[in-house]
């Protein structure tokens, strides 16, 4: 029942039809020759943890959840010691199924990768985590995938950051994205370097919403043309519909490790000029129990000294406040902009995971 009392928003998931369709391939270069020297390592069942981590490093596997190279995460977890490894397939944002779909369609590889990650870090338990509140799907998510239990993360929209709460009894937990597990399994079994990633192409302008395995560095426009545009979009989003970045030059923007999704929307851009009426809905939905109303007012009035009082550093940037705002204020974007200016320790943000060396 833990999820019932969590704050946040209930979103229409709109994962269909992309989720139930097959995972399709779309490559622009032949990368089958790019392999690591697999023969330098012993067979799969004789690998030591250090060798698995070395293979992950050599194959350049990157976790698509946070953009951190997988070998760094595994080495860190191996040193500190974790009890549980969780394969994360919780696509809690609408339209996206780029972790869940590969998990269901390539389940053998994902289970194999999870087993390898477990051996690499010496964990006792393994689980997969999916989001529970997906109601409009045609395929049923099984209780067990290849003998591994699938846990459902309950609750409202920002669910991904609450996965560790679901595994409170078996802490500490290492979270690895389902896509990275598949790439790890490929690297260990066949010696393949990660040259592809999984993305969802969807949105109300996409004719055939589907999940694709595309080459890294593929221009976004080619991906959209592969799936077909049924109408002229005016917003193209790289990443989730709640947290992704708008892309203004799809011919030059490329698909990278942690893109996750390419969404094309047409929205009525009629300018709705409203002022904040102080309805307090942003306060009701904030999953971190912050007060976006007062934070936004402080930012508007330039009272940056008050921001640490409202604990702006706890903001996780989920965008629920902007989503719910009846006045269409860009609260989330304002907070993000001001946090990059503030000094660290006074509410300033950490650099994004992807930008880390």
């Amino acid at each position, binding site marked *: 029942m833990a999820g019932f009392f969590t704050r946040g*928003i209930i*979103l229409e998931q709109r994962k269909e039809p992309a989720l139930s369709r097959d995972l399709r391939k779309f490559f622009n270069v032949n990368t089958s020759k790019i392999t690591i020297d697999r023969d330098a390592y012993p067979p799969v069942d004789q690998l030591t943890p250090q060798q698995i*981590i*070395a293979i992950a*490093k050599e194959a350049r596997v990157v976790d698509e959840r946070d953009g*951190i190279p997988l070998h*760094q*995460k595994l*080495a*860190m*977890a191996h040193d*500190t010691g974790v009890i549980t490894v969780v394969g994360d397939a919780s696509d809690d944002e*609408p339209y996206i199924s780029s972790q869940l779909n590969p998990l269901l369609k390539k389940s053998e590889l994902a289970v194999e990768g999870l087993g390898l990650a477990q051996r690499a870090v010496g964990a006792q338990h393994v689980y997969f985590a999916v989001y529970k509140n997906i109601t409009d799907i045609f395929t049923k998510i099984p209780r067990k995938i290849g003998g591994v239990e699938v846990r459902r993360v309950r609750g409202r929209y920002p669910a991904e950051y609450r996965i560790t709460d679901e595994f409170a009894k078996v*802490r*500490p937990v*290492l979270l690895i994205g389902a896509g990275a597990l598949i790439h790890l399994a490929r690297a260990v079994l066949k010696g393949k370097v990660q040259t592809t990633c999984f993305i969802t192409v969807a949105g109300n302008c996409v004719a055939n919403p589907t999940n694709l395995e595309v080459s890294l560095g593929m221009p976004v426009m080619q991906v959209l043309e592969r799936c077909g545009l049924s109408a*002229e*979009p*005016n*917003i*193209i*989003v790289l990443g989730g*519909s*709640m947290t*992704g*970045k*708008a*892309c*203004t030059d*799809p011919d030059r923007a490329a698909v990278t490790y942690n893109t996750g999704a390419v*969404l094309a*929307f047409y*929205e009525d851009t009629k300018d*709705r*000029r*409203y*002022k*904040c*009426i*102080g*309805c*307090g809905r942003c*306060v*009701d939905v904030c999953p971190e*129990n912050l*007060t976006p109303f*007062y934070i936004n007012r402080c930012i508007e009035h330039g009272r940056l000294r008050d921001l640490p*009082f*409202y*604990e702006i550093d706890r903001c996780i940037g989920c*965008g629920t406040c*902007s*989503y*719910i705002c*009846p*006045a269409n204020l*860009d609260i*989330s*974007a304002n907070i993000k902009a001001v946090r990059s200016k503030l000094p660290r320790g006074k509410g300033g943000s950490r650099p994004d995971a992807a930008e*880390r060396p």
Partner: protein
Amino acid sequence: MLLKDHNAPHIKARETNRTVMGDAIIALLPLYLMAYYFYGLRALALGGVSVVTCVVADLLCVLLRGEKPNPRDFSPIVTGMIIPLMLPANIDYAIVVIGGLFAILFVKQPFGGVGQNLFNPAAGAFALMAISWPEKVFLYPEPLTRLAAFGETATKLTEGPAHALKLGGVPVINALDMITGNFAGPMGATNILVLATCLIYLIFRRTVSWQTPVTFLATSALIAGLFPRVSTGALNSVVLELLSGTLMFGAVFLLTDPVTSPKRGLSKYIYGIVAAVVTMMFRRFGGYEQTVMFAVLLMNALAPVIDRLSESILRILRRVHLEPRKRRNARAPRRPQEKKAAQV
């Protein structure tokens, strides 16, 4: 392809300011229907005059400030609809016009217009009218008397049950009449059944949060039961205090005004409780029989303070509950260890 730079999130909830204010208008319409049933066409004419006054005054102020008027902003309509409902149906049009002008020109717009006002415009207007014309505002026509829309409205005027309570008497009203509003009183504030329905509608539409009105009504009932003003027992006191006068109307439409009420869940409870205490104190020791609007004005001034207070309480609670958990989470892999990985 013309792409625009758009901030996340890229999907939006369908509700806008327009639907929030539209919900309030929808909730106010049945009150006007009941007022039409009780007092005839004059009730509707009063509402129309008030709405036109408020909208025109609001438009003038917006133009004076040099902004572009927004036709989707319904807030002056809501203010204009609320003001006559707190008044007797035979009130002069001039008083309603002055009240509407005061609400917009003095209470709402000097602070910066919609969403910026410190005090509820309708409550401010009622305070002005009650202080300036008490002999007209607190004398009500009997219900089911047809009042002419224009011209002389010579009819028998009586004091409401709240006045009898104020003097220490016990108003004698049939329970059914009390619930359906069939007694002398403000034009729209006597129909308890309709008001309760409006409250439920607004709560389910999430236009108002349930915390404030429910705690306000519960605390009012508690105080009325513990310290009855009438001599006929605690239960009778609760019924009379809650159902006579504008307490229910204030709880549904004035106290829950989104602009001037506090935002945090905890402060909404505090707000409702303190507002109830203030209202009942005013009723007992104050000079007027309708006291909710004065209590609302006082509480509006306190709302930011209450929010600040509950934010401080929340900060302390977070320190107590979340700090140990945070330390445990700090063990999760965060900073990559280049050295160890390089050794492998």
